[in-house]
């Protein structure tokens, strides 16, 4: 039972936490529900105009945690305050989706789109419904149509790349990731994902591209361990291939060796001051050796 004498600083702390989670798009729904529920039940009067956006945030988090009671009460408050809002309608649709009433949700979204054909949120929810129902090829088709009209929607490009990867259509997934890299050239994660797709596609040219983009990801963020391992793997892979010239082989072995030394360095730094350091260093060396691609 929370006392109603919670200090004002505590309330503002909770508000700041919620705001940070909202602005940085965290998906820690359980925490949001905990903090938000307390804030809304006990201190609703002190929140001012913030309360509506907090209702929205807590409602979505509640849907994530299957708390339909909380979601319903938030939705009622929002409906009462904003009776004709498309934004609130979309939230109502999301609740129907959470209850797996996809037909009703689709009808709701269609009504929004009739009113406002440029409403991107409703279109994206319809695509999510297709995805939830497992109809990936239809979802892919709809998403492609959506992207033809809204070429700049990065969230959508990322979603499409995921769908293609699940369908093992790596060439198209690479295309989507290229779009993302182009619009966010300083984001090391897109470079790394692109490199991974290229590596998966295989073939000498793709491996070279993969190595380049792993290196770029590392350049953008020195601490991306996945990219470091990727660099090691792609460099060793190319070096072990019989079709390459001697110079290329030498270069790639150099890159691979460098990557291996950086990996060992990282593990050494991680184990500093711990007793098991010597054993883990040896384990890393063995791991690197076992990952060597041997010609088969």
């Amino acid at each position: 039972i929370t006392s109603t004498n919670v200090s004002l600083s505590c309330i503002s702390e909770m508000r700041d936490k919620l705001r940070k989670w909202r602005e940085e798009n965290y998906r820690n729904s359980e925490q949001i529900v905990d903090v938000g529920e307390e804030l809304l039940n006990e201190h609703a009067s002190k929140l001012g105009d913030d309360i509506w956006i907090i209702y929205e945030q807590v409602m979505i988090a509640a849907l994530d945690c299957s708390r339909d009671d909380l979601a319903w009460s938030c939705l009622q408050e929002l409906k009462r305050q904003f009776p004709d809002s498309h934004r609130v309608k979309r939230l109502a649709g999301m609740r129907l989706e959470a209850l797996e009433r996809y037909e009703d949700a689709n009808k709701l979204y269609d009504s929004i789109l009739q009113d406002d054909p440029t409403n991107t949120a409703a279109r994206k929810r319809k695509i999510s419904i297709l995805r939830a129902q497992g109809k990936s090829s239809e979802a892919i088709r709809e998403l492609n149509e959506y992207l033809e009209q809204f070429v700049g929607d990065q969230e959508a490009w990322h979603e499409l790349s995921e769908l293609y990867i699940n369908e093992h259509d790596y060439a198209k997934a690479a295309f989507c990731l290229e779009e993302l890299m182009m619009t966010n050239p300083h984001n090391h994660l897109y470079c790394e994902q692109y490199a991974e797709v290229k590596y998966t596609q295989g073939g000498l040219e793709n491996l070279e591209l993969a190595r380049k983009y792993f290196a770029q990801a590392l350049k953008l963020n020195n601490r991306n361990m996945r990219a470091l391992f990727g660099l090691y793997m792609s460099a060793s892979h190319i070096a072990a291939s019989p079709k390459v010239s001697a110079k290329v082989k030498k270069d790639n072995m150099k890159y691979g060796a460098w990557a291996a030394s950086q990996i060992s360095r990282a593990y050494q730094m991680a184990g500093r001051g711990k007793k098991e350091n010597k054993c883990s260093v040896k384990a890393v060396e063995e791991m690197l050796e076992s990952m060597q691609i041997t010609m088969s």
Partner: protein
Amino acid sequence: MAHLLLDSSIRLWVVLPIVFITFFVGVLRHYVTQLIHNEKKVDLQQVSDSQVLLHSRILRENGKYLPKQSFAMRKHYFNNPETGFFKKVKRKVIPKNPMTDTSMLTDMMKGNLTNVLPMILIGGWINWAFSGFVTTKVPFPLTLRFKPMLQRGIELISLDASWVSSASWYFLNVFGLRSMYTLILGQDNGADQSRIMQSQMTGAAMAMSPDPNKAFKSEWEALEIVEHKWALENVEEELVCQDLNFRGLFS
């Protein structure tokens, strides 16, 4: 240069009231604008077109991060002589005549009503109510040309042009309080007159939409001349010449 000593009651009863009047009228204008403002209906085609143009521009600027082939493929999609997007797509353009287009006309009228009219009314009232005396002195010297403009109602030939009447003080306030409005009413507020005047001057800049064909053509030309210079040419060499910085990875 004459050093005049002004009655301190001028400060109390003229300078400050004008500031307050200007400020509150501005706030009032902001709310009135909000009340009679109607939502602009966005056309799907326009949104789509503007995004395509943005996409092409990004391709030009950041294409160097993509592999050569991907860049070529995209450039081809836009600029191919037969099937390129910019060549093929021609939008039907209905030139919007500002005199006959009703929606634009009402918008213009509303703009005039809420901004120009109050300014004229209040300027005139202040000129009538607070006339016949010098209000304040601008801190920099002005030439004699400014005298008739800034010293309405004060018929002194020998008076320095830096001494101004209350009407000029009023106009000074209108522009000066702009940042105060931003502080109190938030960005994009209806009381910001200079912003509105700017948009009236650049007038047809809003009308980028009525002529997407021209925009497409200029984008096509810009894209044609772009060459692909791969930024990743030497990325590995640059990377391996020094150790990685793991600071912050292990806490």
